[in-house]
Every structure is written in C-alpha cells, then in structure tokens.
C-alpha cells in the first residue's frame, strides 16, 4: 500500500476542441497494446491447419499467374536491373501489407466497439494493433523472397539499412489513411466502400505488376502522385543493390504520409469524442 498511487489523478471533462496526442498515456498502456497485438496474431493463425502456407499462397499464386501471362503473351513490363519475378514478388508482399493493414485499421474501431464500450484505453491502440500485427504476416511472406534472392544471387547492398525507414514510412501512411477512414466510417459506411475501391484500383495504378518506365514520361508526374509509387520503388531499391533509389519520389511519399498521419490522428481524436455515443 504505497501512497504515491493516490497522486495519480484523472480529470474527466467535456472534450475540448484542442485535443492533443497523449503519447505518455499510450506508453502507460503498452502492455495492453502488446497483449492485443499477440492476440490478433494468434487469432489469424490459430484456426488454420496450413498456417504459414496461406500467408505465402496469395503472392506466390499471383507471381505464377503473372509470369505465365508475361511469358506467353510476350508483354513487356519494362523491368530493368532485376529479374521480373523478384520485382513482382517484392512489390506484391508490401502492397498486400499496405492494403490489408489499411483496411484493418479503418475497421479497427468497429471491431473493438464492444471493448470500447466496457473498458477504457487510449483509443489509438485500436488502429495500432492491426498495423503492427500484420507485420508478422508480412515477415512470413518475405521468406520466399529471401529464398529467391539467394537463388538468383541478387544481393542487397548498404541500402538495406534504409529498409526500416521505408517500412516505417509505409506504416505511417497506413496509420494516417486508416485513422482517417475509421473516423469517417463512424458516420457513414460509404467511406469504407470508397476505401475498398481505391485500394482495389491501387494495385493497377501502382508499380506492383509493371515498372513505371512503361508509362509515358509526361504522364509519370501524375503517376507519382500516388504515394505508394515511391514507397514500392524505394522498398525494392533497399532490397536490390542494382535498383536505383527513387529519391524525390520517396521524399514525396514521406511528406504525403506525414501530412496524412497528422490529419488522420486529428480527425480520429475528434471522432473519439463521439465514439461511445455513436457505436
């Protein structure tokens, strides 16, 4: 029975317009965050007999299909410096991480609604859980990539050190977009559909399957407005030494992500005022 616990004071007040991000509180709840992340990973895998197989199945199947199409149709994907299979597989895994995490963060509030009605925790924990737990599947789906790199002998260079930065930028973009749409979808389910459509089309307007070199030089400016374009190329550049780093494109992606996370978290905090009433 120590007395210092009495010093902890919680003040409950009506929400004010100027809500700021309480990182200190988030740190205090880190145990809950980790526990929820582990729970989320376990749920993803506990019901599957072929646990890991399904994690690679989708990118590997798509890899097979596109290599088939490319070889038999003679289509030119304009991929230079590295083999098409490495280009495609590396693009697919980070793209799927982006899509699944964005969808999951956007839905996280709805998913944790029952919990939010009964237990207090910093609301930012909800979108953070899928963001981090999906990294696990992302890591597993990277195992075939490692095998392919060794097989083909295309080793990464010093740029591998930049890989965490690129992944972090991708996570920032996911969290920003996810929190933004989580806030929207509290008021209208249309937002969720809109996000799904954008993410679906994203596969075709991002450099996942083909190289942006295929695009006309003048149109490239428009093409790189897509923040994931820079991320995808930068991700590959970190993995494959011969692949040039898209400095300006990635800088744009980074700036875009930072703007989105600030806007997203602000909106999320504002929506938080209404969570319990609206859920």
């Amino acid at each position, binding site marked *: 029975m120590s*007395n210092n*616990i*009495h*010093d*902890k*004071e*919680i*003040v*409950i*007040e*009506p*929400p004010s317009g100027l809500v700021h991000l309480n990182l200190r509180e988030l740190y205090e*709840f880190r*145990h*809950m965050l980790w*526990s929820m992340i582990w*729970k989320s990973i*376990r*749920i993803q895998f*506990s*019901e599957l007999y072929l646990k890991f197989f399904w994690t690679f199945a989708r990118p590997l199947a798509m890899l097979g299909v596109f290599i088939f199409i490319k070889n038999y149709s003679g289509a030119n994907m304009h991929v230079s410096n590295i083999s098409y299979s490495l280009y495609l597989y590396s693009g697919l895994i980070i793209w799927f991480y982006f899509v699944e995490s964005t969808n999951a963060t956007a839905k996280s509030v709805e998913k944790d609604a*029952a*919990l*939010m*009605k*009964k*237990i*207090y*925790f910093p609301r930012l924990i909800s979108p953070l859980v899928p963001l981090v737990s999906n990294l696990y599947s992302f890591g597993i789906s990277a195992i075939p990539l490692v095998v392919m790199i060794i097989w083909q002998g295309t080793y990464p260079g010093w740029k591998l050190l930049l890989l965490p930065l690129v992944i972090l930028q991708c996570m920032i973009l996911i969290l920003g977009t996810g929190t933004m749409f989580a806030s929207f979808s509290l*008021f*209208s389910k249309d937002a969720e559909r809109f996000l799904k459509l954008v993410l679906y089309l994203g596969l075709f307007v991002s450099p996942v399957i083909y190289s942006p070199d295929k695009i006309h030089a003048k149109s490239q400016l428009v093409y790189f407005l897509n923040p994931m374009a820079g991320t995808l190329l930068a991700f590959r550049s970190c993995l494959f030494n011969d692949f040039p780093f898209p400095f300006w494109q990635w800088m744009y992606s980074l700036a875009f992500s930072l703007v989105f996370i600030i806007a997203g978290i602000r909106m999320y905090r504002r929506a938080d*005022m209404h969570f*319990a*009433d609206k859920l």
Partner: protein
Amino acid sequence: MKNETAIEVQGLSKKYSIGTIKKYKKKEIGILDNLLLPFRMLRNIGETSFFNKNDDFIWALKDINFKINHGEKVGIIGKNGAGKSTLLKILSRLVYPTEGKATIRGRVTSLLEVGTGFNNNFTGRENVYLNATLYGLERAEIDSIFDDIVEFSGVGKFLDTKIKYYSSGMRMRLAFSVAAHLDPDILLLDEVLAVGDIAFQQKCLERVEGLASGGRTIVFVSHSMSAIVKFCDRVIWLQDGKVIYDGEATEAVKLYQDGPLSEKELDLASRSDRKGTGLVRYTKVSILDENMNLCENVRTGQCINIALDYRAEEPYAEPPRDVKACIIIEDNKQNRLFGLPSEILIADLSNIKSTGRFICKLNSLPVIPGVYDITISLLIDRQLVDKVVSAYKLVVLEDDYYGTGLLPKHTMGRVCVDFDWLHESRN
C-alpha cells in the same frame, strides 16, 4: 498532503441525442420497397448531416455533484433510465460528459461487465492473461495472482481447454475470478455480482466484502437492495438524471423500497416516537393533488394537498376551540426550510370530534428536486397533543417551474420562489 477525496464530481451533465424522428410510411416494407430502397435513400442525402443540429436531446444526467472520500463504499440506486449507468460510464471514461468535471484520485478499475475481451478460440489460461492485461495488469503481476484466480474459479481442470467448450457458468466464473483479483484503490462496479450458482455467488459476495473492508473505495450500481445494504455505507439516489438523495445507506434503501414514490399514503400507527399528550393522534399522511386524488409523482411547483388524518383518544363531548396544526418541511440534512402553521391564517380547525382530516394546501410546492422530511404537530388549547418528527419523506421530482427548463442550483438553497427580474435602464 494526501488528498482524502477519491472521486469528486462537479456539475456533471450528459446530453444524449435521441436522433431526429424520421417519418416512415407504414407501407415501406414490401418487396418492391426493398428493391427501391437505394433510390429512396438518394432522396434523403441532402437531409442527413453528420452532426444534426435539429436532433432531439435528453439529459441523462443533469448537474450532478458529490464527493467520495477514500475508503467510502457508495451505492448508486434509482429506477431504470435514472442515469446510473451513464454516471458510471463517465467515471469509467467510456463517454465524455457534456458539462462539468469529475476528478478521480488513485488507481481505478471499472467492472461494467466481466469477461470483456474473452476469446472463444483461446484457452482458459490465455484468456485470464488477456483479460487481466485489459484491466491494466502487467505480466509479472498476473503471474503472481494466477494461482489464486484459478483456485477461486474452480475451473482448474479445464484451464488448457478452449473456452468455447466451457459452459456459460464456467466462463462466468473464470471471468469473475479475474475481476475479483484485481486490486485497485477505487472499484466501479455495475451489477456484476449475479453470476454463477448460489454457492459461487456467495463466494463472490464474500470476496467483494473482503475488498470492501480492505479500505478500498467502491462505487456500486445495483438494483439489489440487499447487496447495497451489505456493502455500502452511503447511497446516492438518482432520479431523472439528478441526485435526489445522498446519505446514509440503510435509510435510503428503506425509503427506496417501501418508499413514498409508490406509496402516497403513509400510515402512522406504527410510529411510537411521538411527543405530546396523545389526546389526539395523527393516523395517516397523504399527499394529494389539486383534485384531491392521491398523487403519483410530486414535482417542483406542483399544487399539492397534504392531508393529515387524526383520531381522538376519547371523543370530545365539547369540541376544543383552540386547535393549531403545523407542518414543517426540512431537507435531508435536517435544515428547516419552511413551516406551515395554521395559526397565522384565519383557518378554523376547531370542532374536533372523534376522527377527521386536516388538509394543508400548497398552491405551488416551492422546493427543488430532492427528498424532504415532513414534521407534523398539533396543539390543542396551547398544549402539545401530538408531534411526529419526519412523519413523511417527500420525494420531489423535477419540473419546469420557471418555464425555462432551469431551476436554482442546490448550492443557493433548496427553495424555489416565484420571482421575476426587470431592468430599468437609465440612459
């Protein structure tokens, strides 16, 4: 300096939107209507907005004030919809208040339900860990209480079975065991004691009793008056989002159970704590409305008649001439608010024979919502013949006395006076 106050609530209010009432035609449920629904929705796009200003509101809580010191056990009672759960949700930080402020000092755990976050595909063991982390415990802390939790729950054999194979009783027992082994300074409880079979319920009650006697602060919302009496030494009674009583638990529960809220007539025959000679005794107090019908609810500003039935010990051969009846209204802290002595009016109460009834009419009951004591006395020929202190507890509910939806705050006193403000500006 250690602050003695565990929970301080100042002017807390919560407004809920109950939505704009939409006009639906009865016909809109056929097959064709379902097929056409997407097109009908288009029509409504312009009408809906995210924060509809035209929504109707209700105040689930209005201007709640109280202080709870460390170590106090407070029960919160009231009818459904009185605002009990809303209050607990605000204190648990699940919803924001609309106005006011609450301060909580100390480590607080709120149990609005047990087994929150239990996952069917996890084993009992995993769920204990998960559930306890949700209440803010760290792994090492859970390790240290894990054996106690398992023993208490009595499901030790099935600890490594997925809980989807548990019976609902086993699940509840495991969930409650986790909850019962949390060790907060302040515990907010919402009707979670009624789980499992009788033997387990008994065990839970003992456990909560143990927590209660361990110097913890407990705020307990319940409909079970026996549990309230057992654990709480203080009761806050909510009605229509307001505190109408805040005080000693047993008295509050007694009031609530056989309370004047349901019974507008109170027999005084059982009252032996009287003063006076006893030549005439009051037998009954009734609260009547303006049409002399028993009153369901008494509200601020309402016209009421307080009827006092009496019986003379021996019928008077010659009626006494000087009869004075008096009613005194006190608040629940025994402060006298006002008196209603018959003698200052030209009321003639004489001509007492054997039985009868005095009626005191208040054109407008001038008190803010709350519980009030009515003390009655009777003087005949300058001699006190009967006096019953706190003969009746009058529960007054809110009403729009001033036509503005507002009433004076209790900090200004509990009396509502008919008043007006004018302004004469001199330029």
